[in-house]
Structures are given as structure tokens and as C-alpha cells.
């Protein structure tokens, strides 16, 4: 059996190995996979490989129930995307659907067994007020947030506070960039929009071009402080890379675009950890191209110590004595990358000492 930290990733990359698990191992696997949002993905992989038989009878319903939910969510995602499109139809641009929503509408392998918490869209910054007004008219309203969080989003972030539909409870994150203004890296959103592509069968919305989709997924993963679905997002990247890498010039284009958009560092990490957890094939020339963006010799072992823990399922059975510390380090690092210190320190102070004592805004 692999280490408990790699139980889920091993299952995804080598389903045949599951035949050797004891019932006690399955108990842990199901719990970790559920926490990581990967139960339905694992089911999809086993269906693909014709290996559903490896699941012991006692555990089977967990996979079937998760697959049922995932299938239903994909129908809902398509529906919500059309509703968003309809709401924004009068505006002079097409919204770009990001991440999971894009994988579903573009029928990519990263949609298989994908579970959703919300939908992300990217719109031009100048159009934000019009977008927000149009979405509100269609029933999406800001979820209750404390005054501090409202200000934090509006002033510093690359997205507005999440909007929730009053009837269907679906949640949209509206982004105007893929990183905050305050971040160290400044990928140009206009370049992403210019390279975006139409979606077969879904008019009026676009998705990022393949290399940009990977860069965005990597950037999001390595700048997101909480990493609740780190392994799921890494598995998405694994599936996207295996799918897009068919094209002959894919790898050089990916590396060149990463450098052009100032996103070589997040791509470096994404490729490092996707290989570690999923043994994803990566062309050697990319490593060479990204070498200048790699962290210094002393920094890399530290990043490994953090990310090999923080990207594993956030479950007691996958944790060791350093996991809590590693997660906290990933959290602070993400904020460090997103904000300069003069903003970061007050923000972390507020989150540590004031937020826990604030009243829930929904009951205020």
C-alpha cells in the first residue's frame, strides 16, 4: 500500500493497484476521496478502465451516489452557463467560463466526475458594474459578507464577492483578472481574452485557449490559500495535460506562453506536483524552458515539504505532525503572493483576531 497521503492519487493513476487494498484501506480511501471531492472522478476512471469490479460491495454505493451527484451537477452547470449567457446577452463581450464550468461545456476529460461548488467567469474589468447589475436582475445577489470582507474583495481582489441565485442557490464568482491587482505576477487579462475560443454547441460564451486554461488552473492552484480541493484541481491539470499534449507543438507553446504571461513559476510548480501525484508525462524541453523560473536550491525542498502535504486530501488519515503547519504555510504564502506586506499583515491580523468574533452577517 502507498503512503496514506498518496492513497487517492495512486488510485486515480493506477486503478489496478486497488485490487490489493484491504477493506480497512477502502474505508480510508473513500473518506479521503470524498473530502478531496474526487469520489466521482475515481468512479469515472474505474468506469473508463472497466474496473468497477475492484470496488468491494460495502463501498460501492458511495461511488454510485457521488457519480449520480456529479452527473446531475454537469446538467446544472450547462443550464447555469446558459442562464448567465442569457443574463449578459446585451453586453458588448462574451463572458469566458473558467475552470470546472469550462471543462464541462467544452467536453474536456477534466469534466469526468467533476464536482462543483460554484461557477467562475471572467469579464472585462470595465464591464463589471454592468455585469453585476445584469446578474442581479437575473436573480444572482451578493451572498452576505462582513463589511471587512466586502471591502477586501472590492478593493484588492480580482473578483467581486460571490453572487448567489435567490431561487436555485447557484453561486457565481465573477473575475475581472486571474490574479489580484496586488499580486507579484501580472498576467494580462486582455491577452487571455484575445486568445479565448468559442465552444461548440454553446453560443455566446467562450473558454480559454488550451495553454491558457492550463496556466490559469496552475495559477489558481498555487495562489489559492486554502487548497480545500488542491488534489482535485491537480487531477484536473493532469487530465488537461494528457489531453492537450497530443498536439506536436503543445509543450513549447505552453512554456513560451507561461513566460509571456509572467506565470512560469506557477507552471513550474504545477508540473512538479502533477508529476509527483499523478505521474503525468511532461516533455523534457519544458523543464529546460522553465529552469530560470525555478525557485532557488534552498527554497525547493521547503516548497516540497509544504505542497506534498497541503495538496494531499485534507483528512486526518492523510496528515502527519507537520501537515497543519504546511497548510498554514501554504495559506500565508498564497496571500504573500497576492498582496504586498503592507496590506498582507493587517489582513492576516484581521482574519486571525477579528473575524472569529464577528457575528455571522446573515443573522446580523
Amino acid at each position, binding site marked *: 500500500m502507498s503512503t496514506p497521503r498518496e492513497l487517492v492519487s495512486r488510485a486515480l493513476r493506477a486503478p489496478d493497484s486497488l485490487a490489493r487494498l484491504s477493506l480497512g484501506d477502502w474505508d480510508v480511501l473513500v473518506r479521503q476521496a470524498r473530502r478531496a471531492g474526487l469520489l466521482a472522478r475515481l468512479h469515472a476512471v474505474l468506469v473508463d478502465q472497466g474496473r468497477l469490479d475492484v470496488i468491494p460491495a460495502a*463501498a460501492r454505493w458511495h461511488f454510485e*451516489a*457521488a457519480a449520480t451527484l456529479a452527473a*446531475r451537477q454537469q446538467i446544472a452547470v450547462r443550464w447555469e452557463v446558459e442562464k448567465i449567457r442569457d443574463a449578459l446577452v446585451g453586453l458588448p463581450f462574451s463572458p469566458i467560463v473558467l475552470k470546472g464550468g469550462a471543462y464541462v461545456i467544452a467536453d474536456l476529460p477534466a469534466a469526468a466526475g467533476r464536482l462543483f461548488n460554484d461557477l467562475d467567469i471572467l469579464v472585462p474589468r470595465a464591464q463589471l458594474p454592468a455585469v453585476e447589475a445584469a446578474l442581479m436582475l437575473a436573480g444572482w445577489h451578493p451572498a452576505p459578507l462582513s463589511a471587512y470582507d466586502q471591502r477586501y474583495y472590492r478593493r484588492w481582489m480580482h473578483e467581486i464577492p460571490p453572487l448567489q441565485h435567490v431561487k436555485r442557490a447557484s453561486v457565481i464568482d465573477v473575475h475581472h483578472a486571474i490574479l489580484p491587482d496586488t499580486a507579484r505576477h501580472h498576467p494580462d487579462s486582455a491577452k487571455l481574452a484575445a486568445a479565448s475560443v468559442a465552444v461548440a454547441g454553446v453560443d455566446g460564451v467562450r473558454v480559454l485557449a488550451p495553454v491558457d486554461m492550463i496556466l490559469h488552473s496552475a495559477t489558481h492552484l498555487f495562489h489559492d490559500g486554502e487548497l480545500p480541493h488542491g488534489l482535485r484541481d491537480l487531477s484536473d491539470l493532469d487530465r488537461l495535460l494528457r489531453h492537450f499534449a497530443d498536439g506536436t507543438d503543445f509543450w513549447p507553446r505552453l512554456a513560451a506562453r507561461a513566460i509571456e504571461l509572467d506565470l512560469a513559476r506557477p507552471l513550474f510548480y504545477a508540473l512538479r506536483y502533477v508529476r509527483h501525484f499523478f505521474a503525468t508525462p511532461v516533455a523534457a524541453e519544458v523543464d529546460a524552458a522553465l529552469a530560470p523560473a525555478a525557485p532557488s536550491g534552498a527554497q525547493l525542498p521547503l516548497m516540497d515539504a509544504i505542497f506534498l502535504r497541503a495538496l494531499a486530501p485534507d483528512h486526518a488519515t492523510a496528515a502527519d505532525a507537520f501537515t497543519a503547519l504546511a497548510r498554514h504555510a501554504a495559506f500565508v504564502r498564497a496571500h504573500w503572493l497576492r498582496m504586498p506586506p503592507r496590506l498582507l499583515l493587517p489582513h492576516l491580523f484581521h482574519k486571525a483576531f477579528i473575524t472569529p468574533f464577528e457575528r455571522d452577517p446573515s443573522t446580523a
Partner: protein
Amino acid sequence: MKLMQLSPAALRRQLAGSGVWLRTGPFSVRVRSRLPQVAQGLADLYGQFETRSPIEAFADFHVEINPPGLLRRWLRPQVNFSFDGERPFKPLPLDQAYPMLEWGLNWCVAMHAHHYLVIHAGVVEKNGFAAILPAPPGSGKSTLTAALALSGWRLLSDELTLIDRATGLIHPLPRPVSLKNASIPLIQSFAPDAFLTRAVHDTAKGSVAHLRPPRDSVRRQHEPARPGWVIFPKWQAGAATTLTPRSRAETFLYLAQNAFNYSHLGADGFRVGTALIDAVDCYDFTYSRLDEAIARFDRLAEERHVDAA
């Protein structure tokens, strides 16, 4: 091995350590708790249920019911329910620990068991046919479920009706019946020999006590039943016992609205729901006297029995 075969000390030790593994209907649960009232509740109510060593056993739901941090132990003591490390609810006062465990287990099933259509309704069986009793809180659904379960009907569940999506059959989940407020003395006087836990007061639902599920219902907890009726009970002071047919379409809509996962199942939810409605007779039922209510239900079961024969 049955839970009652564990000594009270062994039960407490296991509960505080690796946890107690229990089978309830189609689900297995591993419960951990340091609280003596939780050990007492399990010993009182789950004695007839199968237990196993939690080591190397697969459990569907891993739950824990324990007080939060140290400070809270002295200052307004509270209790948390956690599902495999996540806390879906706000903490409750410590004396509600046992009811919170039962509510938490209901939540586990309602949120995860999408291989069933899970309807919020009591359900009892006689002669192979199940009577589904959906109703808003306060309508006397649990009271009637308890009284029927103590009068020769088999308890399938007091809260969660599990419809197998593949077969349309109803799977039992005969856990303790949660009785509220006036139902507690009512069931006590209706069946003085039945075991009820001491009532916990001032919960979100008022006073709550749990009725131990009848031994025969637990023994047959793996035996599914065919859907026979959907009956909306309504307790009304002084009312005569009346059973009136009810529209199937309306009943379907109500069930769909009161199924925890109807919308999660998509088109299959509709298919399972309509197959259920096609198989049952639908009624409204008003009553004030439990003995008359049970006699009326017995007659229904008898008629169905004759029809089926």
C-alpha cells in the same frame, strides 16, 4: 455480535477510543464519543443492533459527538457533531448530545445516500406492504409511526423513507423514533412497557425523547418492503377517524418537494417517484384516538392482503 453483549465499561472505552461500529439498516456507522450520555443512549437504544470491531471494518459514516475546547466545558458546556472531521451544525448545549447524534445520523443519510430516493417521511410495514407517512412537523407523524410500530406494524423508519432506485422497494432504517413534546406522555401511556429515553428539554424541537425500536423491526432490518400506501396523517383534538382518498398528482408533488435528494437525481428522481405513486393508494388521514387510528390501518393492511392473495 450485538451491542448489548458489550459491557458498559467496554462500550464506553471503545466509544472513547477507536469508536463503536454499528449496522443500522443498509448503513454502517462508526461513532466516537467521550460523553457518558452518548454511551448510555447507545446502550439503551441500540442493544439489538449488530456491532463489530472497528479495526479493519468498513464504515459508511464516521461520526463523532464531543464537547468543543476546554474553556467551553466550564462556561455553558456545549457539544459538537462531526462527520469525519467536518462540522455541519453549530454546537448545541451539552445535554442535547444524544439527540444531536440521532439528528446527525439522519443528516449523513439524507446528504449522501443518493442510491436511494430519500423522502422525509415515517414508514411502517404490515403483510409486506409499507405505509409511507409524510407530513409537516407537528402533524403527529412520529406519534402515529411509534404507535403503529408498537402495535404489530414493523418500523421501517420514523424520518427517512429509502426508496431503492433500482427495485422501487423500501429499505428499512429502523433507528430509534424521535418523539416530541406531548407525544412523549402520549406514547408512554399508550405503551407503558415501551422503553423511552429521559426527555431532553429546550431543544429546537422542544422536548425530545427517543423510543427504542422494537426488537422484531431490528431483527428484520435487511428485509425490504413493497410500497403500499402514502398516507398524510393529521392529529386533531376530538376529530373522528377519517381516511379520504387524495390526488396522486398532488401527492407526487408533495413527495418530490419533501425528498431530500429528488433534485439531485435528475430524471431518475422523476422515474422513481412516478413508479412509487403508481404502486400506492394515497390518502389523507385525520384522527384523535390512537387505538382507532391503528384499527383503521390494520383494516387497510387486511384489504391489501386480500387483494394481493
